[in-house]
């Protein structure tokens, strides 16, 4: 070893000498995600961390996402075993107010209707298999479908259990479309509703008592235990956080779930998800399919939510503004705000936000239930 060969050795270990084209592209993808997070405020917490994780994971030599790398450690600690999304869900539960849903429970059905998008996308993935380069198994298709749940932690949880190889593109699609809701949904809302429907005014929601809010998480978890045990990790975590918030006896827990814990876990989760965006896994034809199917899932979910609202108006005497059906996809609270904004554009006296929050949080339950079904049935019928 002389000086020359030492410099040679160093030069051979530089990035310049070791890049693959795929890694360069993925680093650019990471930069784009960060740009969207910062400049466009698209789900900034997640797209920022996922984007940064993607950059770090595609650095040659460093092996940051390998089993000994620090992103690999995050991955093993909380993605491979599904832990991080559940901790996020505890925090989500502690931040969610189910009051508007309890005040007008029938709007929950809109949160069911909007989940139809999940199953259309699932079917779409299986149909896409007819194209060359697409080889989605049923488990893959189920994971892709859950993008339509419009709920990041649920999508990550399901994918970590069923189809880990697709985690990168699925997470990116889920969070991207969640932040694109203000762009995706308004035209669909206008296309599937009439002006007359959109100006329907809804009466103010009744007051929901503290005790109702406390009994609800227990009741919902009870139903889930009886009917769908495979959804209980998700629904259980959500209701743990929600009961902690509503009961008023454990504010330290509620505060911790909403702040310190969810923030720390978000950092780890985002970086770890980003670390799965290695070029060979991401730069495939299948990723395009996933992005397309994710969009389909969101669009169809929005549509079925709207249509079901119109059907309910046909059946029931109490009229609801069908715009709030679009909020059933979840994407809390973005979709509810979009519904509220579109409603106010039609009629400035129309305050739909609270009414849209009902289907909106019901959509979280709906996609967790759909996740539970997929987790229960897919491994059996495959």
């Amino acid at each position: 070893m002389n000086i020359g060969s030492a410099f040679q050795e160093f030069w051979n270990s530089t990035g310049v000498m070791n890049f693959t084209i795929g890694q360069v592209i993925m680093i650019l993808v990471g930069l784009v995600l960060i740009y969207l997070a910062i400049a466009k405020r698209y789900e900034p917490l997640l797209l920022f961390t996922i984007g940064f994780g993607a950059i770090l994971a595609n650095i040659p030599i460093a092996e940051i996402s390998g089993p000994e790398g620090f992103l690999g450690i995050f991955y093993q600690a909380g993605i491979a075993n599904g832990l991080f999304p559940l901790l996020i869900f505890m925090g989500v539960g502690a931040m969610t107010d189910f009051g508007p849903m309890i005040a007008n429970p029938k709007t929950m059905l809109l949160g069911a209707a909007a989940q139809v998008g999940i199953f259309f996308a699932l079917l779409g993935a299986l149909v896409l298999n007819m194209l060359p380069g697409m080889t989605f198994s049923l488990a893959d298709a189920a994971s892709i479908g859950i993008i339509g749940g419009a709920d990041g932690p649920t999508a990550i949880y399901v994918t970590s259990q069923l189809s880990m190889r697709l985690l990168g593109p699925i997470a990116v699609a889920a969070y991207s479309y969640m932040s694109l809701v203000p762009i995706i949904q308004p035209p669909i809302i206008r296309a599937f509703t009439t002006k007359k429907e959109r100006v329907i005014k809804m009466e103010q929601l009744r007051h929901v008592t503290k005790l109702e809010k406390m009994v609800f998480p227990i009741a919902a978890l009870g139903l889930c235990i009886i009917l769908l045990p495979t959804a209980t990790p998700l629904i259980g975590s959500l209701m743990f956080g929600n009961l902690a918030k509503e009961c008023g006896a454990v504010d330290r827990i509620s505060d911790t779930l909403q702040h310190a814990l969810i923030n720390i876990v978000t950092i780890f989760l985002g970086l770890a998800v980003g670390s799965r965006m290695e070029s060979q896994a991401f730069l495939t034809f299948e990723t395009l399919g996933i992005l397309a199917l994710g969009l389909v899932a969101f669009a169809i979910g929005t549509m079925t939510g709207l249509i079901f609202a119109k059907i309910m108006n046909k059946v029931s005497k109490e009229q609801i503004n069908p715009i709030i059906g679009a909020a059933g996809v979840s994407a809390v609270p973005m979709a509810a705000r979009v519904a509220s904004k579109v409603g106010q554009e039609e009629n400035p006296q129309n305050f739909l936000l609270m009414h849209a929050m009902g289907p909106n949080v019901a959509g979280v339950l709906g996609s967790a239930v759909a996740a539970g079904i997929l987790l229960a049935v897919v491994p059996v019928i495959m």
Partner: protein
Amino acid sequence: MSSIEQGLILMLVGVSVVFIFLVLLVFIIKIMSFIVLRYFPEKEEPPKKPSGGAGSRDAEIAAAIAAATAYSKQ
């Protein structure tokens, strides 16, 4: 096309169960609200209870200790 058939079955089962689940939840909430509102109506402006368990108890104790210490220094 067995795989697409599986997908269709999954769709049918999935959509059904999601609706069954949420319909049942609607009924449960209605019953729950009925019972709660009838038998456990909210009292007017309940006095805000101290919450946070250990936290607030510690705070009380700390206040008591502070008071006692201040007192003992006089």
